[in-house]
């Protein structure tokens, strides 16, 4: 009869491993800019160029680029050159089709600071193109050899760095700031797990103890507690979370506390109604007449009976907390410095990834959240079935 452990337990261990070992193994700070914003994943095909860099120095006054791709997203030219001679110098771009553009010029005689970026309006204006046109399409009209050369006297020192960002990046592309989505994804799993598990544990403990107490004690205590539950239940959760986040701030632990404090009522109510009907049941009446104390009955009989309900609450609770975190993040109510999957979706939405069709920003965190939730649901169900084998579905796993 022994079966291998359910898939969800394996998946859970895997997720834990990623959360524990993943972030330290990343090659650097996930906040770094790696490629152009919204760069699709490297494997997704297409004709986007790889990154390119070159330099103009006193030794090499020309950069030749053998270009075989679509125009790059951007072009930057930064650095400084020193000139002793007092005569003008120019940076000239020659395209494969023979077109020639002056990118910048200088009167000579001193240190020349260059800081050009093809996105600058001044750069576009200098090339004589309208503000919405792409300067790089002008500079890279077709495939072939484009050159950047320094015309005028030779510089005596310094260097100019030309950089063309790549159009594709990594396994999962980049986000609106050019950060590597895979790194963010790996870092984000921690937050989802942390928030989900801690908030639910807090809520379940609260719910269980309050529900049992209320249901078993009955009387004024029950009435009072249930009124309190009613009040808390009457206030829609999301808005009250928003209010509290506004007051307490958006830290992660505040979020956990708030989520925990405002999601125990469900468990409490269910447990209490169970305790209530159990309290009325014959066998508890019998126990009581046999002289069993309330704590004994609570501990030995009500608690085990309530366990499946609590486990159901946990199994539904972790995904609930994770989804609540995602929802709050979607509304922008999470700490912007903490990278979570919900936050990633919020930023993707805020920066137009949905309409831009930047699926690599949407699918990983979206599916990631769902996967974690599914894992917890299935684990919860497994635990439930162990506690109450009647629930076992024929093939439902």
């Amino acid at each position: 009869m022994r079966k291998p452990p359910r898939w969800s337990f394996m998946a859970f261990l895997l997720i834990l491993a990623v959360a524990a070992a993943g972030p330290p193994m990343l090659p650097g700070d996930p906040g770094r800019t790696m490629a152009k914003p919204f760069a699709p994943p490297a494997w997704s095909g297409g004709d986007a160029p790889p990154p390119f860099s070159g330099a103009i120095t006193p030794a090499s006054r020309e950069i030749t680029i053998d270009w075989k791709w679509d125009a790059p997203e951007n072009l930057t030219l930064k650095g400084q050159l020193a000139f002793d001679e007092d005569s003008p110098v120019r940076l000239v771009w020659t395209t494969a089709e023979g077109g020639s553009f002056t990118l910048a010029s200088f009167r000579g005689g001193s240190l020349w600071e260059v800081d050009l970026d093809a996105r600058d309006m001044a750069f576009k204006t200098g090339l004589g193109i309208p503000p919405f046109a792409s300067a790089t399409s002008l500079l890279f009209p077709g495939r072939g050899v484009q050159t950047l050369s320094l015309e005028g006297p030779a510089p005596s020192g310094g260097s100019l760095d030309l950089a063309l960002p790549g159009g594709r990046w990594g396994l999962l592309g980049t986000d609106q700031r050019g950060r590597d989505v895979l790194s963010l994804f790996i870092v984000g799993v921690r937050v989802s797990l942390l928030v989900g598990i801690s908030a639910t544990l807090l809520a379940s403990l609260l719910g269980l103890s309050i529900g049992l107490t209320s249901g078993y004690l009955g009387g004024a205590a029950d009435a009072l507690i249930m009124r309190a539950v009613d009040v808390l239940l009457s206030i829609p959760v999301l808005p009250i979370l928003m209010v509290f986040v506004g007051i307490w701030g958006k830290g992660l632990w505040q979020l956990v506390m708030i989520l925990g404090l405002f999601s125990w009522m469900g468990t409490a109510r269910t447990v209490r109604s169970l305790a209530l009907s159990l309290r009325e049941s014959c066998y508890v009446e019998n126990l009581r007449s046999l002289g069993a104390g309330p704590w004994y009955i609570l501990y030995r009989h009500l608690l085990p009976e309530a366990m499946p309900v609590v486990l159901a609450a946990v199994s539904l609770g972790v995904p609930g907390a994770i989804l609540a975190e995602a929802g709050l993040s979607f509304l922008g109510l999470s700490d912007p410095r903490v990278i979570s999957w919900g936050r990633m979706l919020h930023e993707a939405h805020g920066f137009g990834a949905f309409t831009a069709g930047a699926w690599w920003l949407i699918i990983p965190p979206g599916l990631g959240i769902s996967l974690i939730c599914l894992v917890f649901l299935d684990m919860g169900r497994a635990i439930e079935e162990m506690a109450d084998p009647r629930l076992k579905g024929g093939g439902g796993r």
Partner: protein
Amino acid sequence: MRSYWTKRVLGAAAVLLLVIAANFFLFRIMPGDVVSTIVDPRFSPEAKERMREVFGLDLPLGRQFAVYVRRMLTFDFGISFLSQRPVWDELKSRVPNTVALLGSALVLSSALGTWLGVKAARKRGGFTEKVVLLSGSVSFSFPSFFVQLVLLLLLAYTFPLFPLRGSVSIPLPQTGTARALDYLWHLLLPAGSLVLLGFGSWAIYVRNLMVKTLGEDFILMARAKGLPEGRVLWNHAFRSALPPVLTLFLLALPGIVSGAVLTETVFSLHGVGKYLLDSIMGHDYPAAGAAFYILGLLTIASNLAADAAYALADPRIRVGGRVQS
């Protein structure tokens, strides 16, 4: 029975008062100065001060509260700080949209969920059970706004079967029937997506309850008596599993209300939830308090209704003689 109702209604009234108090104080401990949300950079400091007087923010807190309770009970929510119009005027046009959205989503998802749950429990290991368990888990584990945004993108833009926004077409259709159909057409995607996201958890919950109940002795008895399976299932098993289902209904309600904030945001719907969100963001105390209150009222009313159903459905709860021993 009468004393039960007196008690419940009194309880509800107490809850109502507490909700009002909570609203009042919650919104007043929110940080920030309301004057700053309605000023224009060109206003002089005196003009700002005048704004503060005009809005009566200088009254003592106690008096502000007394006035607040009376106003809530008479649906006089005062003037919105932001729009300077009566809040109820603004809310009025939103309540029907929200009730339509929530009502249809709640009824449809609970009906579909219950029906599928019972069906799944009847045929253990059957196709329905597999579908329920799978779709239930899947629909319960996707972030709602994510699914809704994807649906919106697919069904309103890529394949434009549904409108992108709002609850009416522009220009408005001419006839009454056309307008009603137009409204339904606009409601279909938001409500449908909420159903899609909501029925799964219902179905699983109901299935679990039913599985349990179907194993009870009284079901075996009923079966042994030779009652038709449908009757056993619905009249006996389901009826006895009903109270926890009603509990679920209660638990689901505020969640769905919260979901409305997100749904109304995604689908640009003109509803109470979106109004609440905007008011909280804008520190518009009267407006946010009123929207909160309306949503609280809806929840309290549903609470009462479910309490009634609970009492009717589970005679084991000895309503009158409870407690007081």
